[in-house]
């Protein structure tokens, strides 16, 4: 992988071991030749393992012995660029501690806000083409000064071969824009940022992958104001903390969580809240999306502002991709923040901050972008030439090169032109960066997805056939791809929505799965969605629909507090819909059941952002309970008894207990159905995927139950469990079918 400082590291290591030889970049990895005896070789290899730069992902080291001649010194041999070879590009790496120290002591880099070295700095976001050379990045317009050039040339220097190397004399700089004036000077800019944040105002700042809006996370007025201006309603804001100890004051941090949050990837981590910030930060949820600084400017900013925590939200207007263009930012964000900080190095490739959660001691990726992209997923079979378009929500696509899957960064919900353009641009980028020519195309079965439209237009252009794949099948196979599973397994795919082969909306799927095909075994009952999408936006409708099904059409809804709050007219319209079956698509989506229960508990009668209802439901769970509601499994899984019990309990029990029991019930259902399948088929491995499994409580409970019942259970670790991971499954399915056809 280029850009992680591996070859300079080998060079310095060889020098310190007093060894001569060379290091060469080859298509299948890095080759190091050293002239030495066996013992020295062993010591050298052991040092490679223990001292390699943090972002170097060493998969294996193979040692061969040969007779060699020559080599009086150690050198790096320039890589020859062959047609078929592709080099992995490093994801963006957070600024390292040595560079932060340079901010204070290296005279040419005092307060140089773009300080970086071979071990850290921007990578994916600035690359335009391969190989990873300065001229192929957006640093090309900044000519190195003599001092930087000599560091670049000096093996012993940490900036040896660091492509983005620059300094105060020759590098990019920050500017601030306010009231139509543009000014430079980093100390002035920091002072101005501090003034604004300390007095409860906002700033828009160009970060690594795009613009962010920031304000003091402790100041309720500031947060509320920002929320209003950005039209965010209740979706939680991410919070950047000054350092890990400030973070630990506000969040509960476990061991794996601490490792993840301080890693060079610097993602946002969903953590349980310990102490409250301003209420409008997470609007009643019990978790905080926390992160640590990752750019030099962030660190410098925290030294000058009062607050230990700032809101960091993406600079974009509702549902459009995060803004990366400076003029666009001035146009859109100035009215929101009144103050914009930009810099004159172009962001070539957009990347949102990544979001992850630790579930069952493992990473569960919610949004895969900065710090992860474009690291590929290694597969065990050949997926070369396959383009997988992905789904609609939280989209990412996948391209196959050899036996590696390169997943794009998080694109977003492809529901508007701007996002579609971003999708298209990113496809072009990946094609050129990785020299990709499609030989097979695959997309979701859904007739209306824009990603599918894109795949169709590619099919027309190239004359290649287009395979359509079922949504939940793809979810399950994404897990199989990650873990190298090729034999038949039990697949559990749970989410809110996905097009089914019967034309209905699926989402609680228990399947028998192979990479090429699947059989639908069981699923929840189908429910009507009165008003279609409106039922997603107004979960009380799903509550009504569920009760309508299980309690009967003349159930006295107004007995329940939920419906007392709903507009009379709306209720009667929905009642009619349920009666007539008009405009009521059918769904077995588990996510909708979560919506219904959340609404019944008065947690979320109306959603203002995706998954709000289930998130609120999860956040009120009182842990430590194992009891669950009764359920019945026949041809389908019936939740009738469960709803009966819940409705009874609404009168005397509190939301936290009902929520816990409900989640336990779903986990029990999962176990039960898997036991049934195992009895019938002997299958013992279970793959679990789908947006519902972003729910930490549910996933951990289900994994526990399966494991104690001797199942082997697998989940998504390298790609999201939500629709952001579907393209990997699509890719694998296409590969599986290709083998069959060949």
């Amino acid at each position, binding site marked *: 992988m280029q850009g992680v400082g591996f070859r300079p590291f080998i060079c310095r290591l060889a020098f310190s071991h*007093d060894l001569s030889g060379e290091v060469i970049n080859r298509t299948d990895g890095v080759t190091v030749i050293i002239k030495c005896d066996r013992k020295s070789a062993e010591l050298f290899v052991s040092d490679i393992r223990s001292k390699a730069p943090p972002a170097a992902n060493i998969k294996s080291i193979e040692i061969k012995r040969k007779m060699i001649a020559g080599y009086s010194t150690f050198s790096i041999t320039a890589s020859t660029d062959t047609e078929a070879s592709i080099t992995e590009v490093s994801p963006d790496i957070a600024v390292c501690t040595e560079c932060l120290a340079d901010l204070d002591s290296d*005279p*040419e880099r005092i307060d140089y806000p773009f300080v970086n070295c071979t071990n850290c700095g921007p990578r994916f976001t600035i690359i335009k083409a391969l190989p990873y050379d300065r001229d192929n990045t957006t640093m090309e317009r900044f000519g190195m000064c003599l001092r930087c050039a000599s560091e670049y040339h000096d093996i012993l220097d940490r900036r040896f071969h660091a492509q983005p190397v620059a300094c105060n004399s020759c590098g990019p700089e920050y500017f601030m824009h306010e009231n139509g004036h543009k000014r430079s000077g980093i100390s002035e800019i920091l002072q101005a940022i501090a003034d604004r944040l300390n007095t409860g105002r906002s700033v828009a700042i160009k970060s690594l992958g795009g613009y962010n809006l920031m304000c003091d996370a402790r100041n309720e007025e500031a947060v509320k104001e920002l929320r209003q201006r950005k039209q965010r309603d209740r979706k939680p804001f991410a919070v950047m903390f000054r350092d890990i100890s400030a973070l630990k004051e506000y969040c509960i941090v476990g061991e794996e969580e601490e490792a993840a949050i301080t890693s060079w990837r610097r993602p946002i981590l969903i953590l349980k809240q310990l102490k409250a910030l301003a209420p409008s930060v997470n609007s009643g949820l019990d978790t905080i999306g926390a992160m640590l600084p990752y750019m030099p400017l962030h660190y410098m900013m925290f030294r000058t502002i009062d607050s230990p925590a700032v809101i960091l939200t993406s600079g974009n207007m509702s549902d459009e991709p995060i803004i990366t263009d400076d003029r666009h930012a001035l146009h859109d964000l100035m009215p929101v923040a009144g103050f914009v900080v930009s810099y004159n190095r172009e962001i070539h490739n957009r990347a949102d901050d990544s979001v992850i959660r630790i579930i069952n001691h493992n990473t569960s990726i919610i949004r895969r972008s900065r710090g992860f992209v474009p690291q590929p997923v290694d597969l065990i079979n050949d997926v070369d030439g396959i383009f997988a378009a992905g789904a609609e929500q939280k989209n990412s696509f996948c391209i196959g090169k050899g036996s590696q899957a390169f997943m794009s960064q998080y694109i977003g919900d492809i529901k508007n032109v701007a996002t579609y353009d971003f999708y298209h641009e990113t496809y072009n980028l990946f094609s050129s960066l990785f020299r990709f020519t499609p030989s097979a195309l695959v997309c979701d079965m859904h007739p209306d997805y824009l990603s599918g439209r894109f795949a169709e237009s590619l099919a027309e252009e190239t004359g290649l056939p287009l395979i359509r794949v079922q949504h939940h099948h793809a979810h399950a196979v994404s897990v199989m791809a990650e873990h190298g599973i090729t034999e038949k397994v039990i697949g559990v795919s749970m989410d809110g929505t996905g097009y089914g082969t019967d034309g209905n909306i699926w989402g609680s799927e228990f399947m028998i799965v192979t990479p090429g095909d699947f059989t639908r075994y069981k699923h929840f009952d189908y429910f009507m969605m009165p008003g279609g999408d409106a039922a997603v936006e107004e979960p009380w409708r799903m509550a009504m629909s569920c009760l309508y099904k299980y309690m009967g059409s003349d159930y006295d809804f107004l007995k329940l507090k939920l419906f007392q709050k709903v507009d009379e007219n709306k209720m009667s319209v929905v009642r009619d819909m349920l009666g007539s079956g008009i405009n009521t698509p059918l769904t077995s989506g588990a996510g909708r059941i979560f919506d219904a229960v959340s609404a019944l508990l008065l947690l979320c009668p109306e959603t203002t952002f995706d998954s709000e209802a289930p998130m609120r439901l999860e956040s009120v769970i009182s842990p430590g309970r194992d009891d669950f509601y009764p359920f019945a499994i026949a041809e389908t899984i019936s939740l009738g008894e469960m709803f009966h019990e819940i409705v009874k309990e609404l009168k005397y029990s509190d939301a936290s207990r009902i929520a816990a029991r409900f989640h336990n019930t779903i986990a029990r259902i999962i176990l039960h159905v898997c036991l049934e399948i195992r009895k019938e088929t002997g299958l013992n491995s279970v793959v679990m995927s789908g947006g519902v499994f972003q729910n930490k409580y549910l996933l951990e409970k289900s994994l526990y139950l399966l494991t104690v019942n001797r199942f082997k259970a697998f989940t998504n670790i390298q790609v999201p469990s939500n629709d952001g991971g579907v393209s990997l499954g699509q890719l694998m399915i296409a590969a599986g079918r290709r083998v069959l056809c060949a």
Partner: protein
Amino acid sequence: MKYVDEFRERKLIMNLADQIRRSVTGEYTFMEVCGGHTAAIHRFGIPSLLPPGIRLISGPGCPVCVTAETYIDELIALSFISGVAVATFGDLMRIPGTAGSLSEARAEGADIRVVLSAYEALEIARSDHDLRVVFAAIGFETTAPGTAVTVLKADAEGRENFFILNAHKVMPPAMEEIIKGGSQIDGFICPGHVSVITGSSAFEFIPRKYKLASVITGFEPTDILSSILMLIRQVNNHNPAVEIQYNRAVTRTGNIKAQAYMNEAFEPCDAGWRGLGVIAAGGLRMRDKYKSFDAGASFNIEVAHNETETACICGDILRGIRTPDECILFASACTPHHPSGACMVSDEGACNTWYKYHLHE
């Protein structure tokens, strides 16, 4: 042959260190007077390779460090004149004048541009006839010839919008001043690149007049260690001389062409060295023939020439009498972020080097 890697071979370094250890028969103090040497010595950890009894001290080797505060003030004043752009080397940007640095002035809108050479400044003047470009000409004999070449070119072109604000200085008189000032020095690690221009002969007064050892030294660890060995031998054998260790670049006579350029454009004059006071013949001034390119003569800039009271001991440090850690401002009020004196700003300054490499000892 790449001129860098070969001179770092670890084995050579260790052998030299060994030889030095064997040659030492007492205590020695050697002074280096070149910022490049200051940085190299500390970067390669040379002191840790030497036996006890050898003391290396830093002298006034940094042209930026010995430039007067008022020079910065003058540049800032010039930069605020409309239609004037100041072109300077990057190192000067953060040096504090009496009321701020060039970097701060630029943030306030002054037209100040960083250039890599005097020639680049001339090119700016060529490209914009309405702009009057003033080049900040600092540096020792290594840099002065380049400025001279550029001034001559400007003259040949009949250029009327190119000027230099001259602060060039020459080394040997300053070294002599230090010797006369009574510092206990046994020998000099002589500047490597100044001697490329002047030739080693410029330093022959050191052994001849003052019986001190001197070796013209390169910048790689093997160069520096070899030179120290050579210095020790000169001292042990009581035969002070000017030896050239850096013979891949330096000769006795130096670069005649460069000297010719320098002499054509400049003549010696007395100059104030920050921290050392006025040194006779310690600077260069523009010859009358080229006076029209001298910004000092062509612009009317008034700056206050007051000596501010300060606890900064840069002067003593430059003289080699005291070390950075003896200054009460070091690493407290005076850091690379907020420098009080020039020795902290430039990466060839003793205080900055100390801060970078020795702060945590």
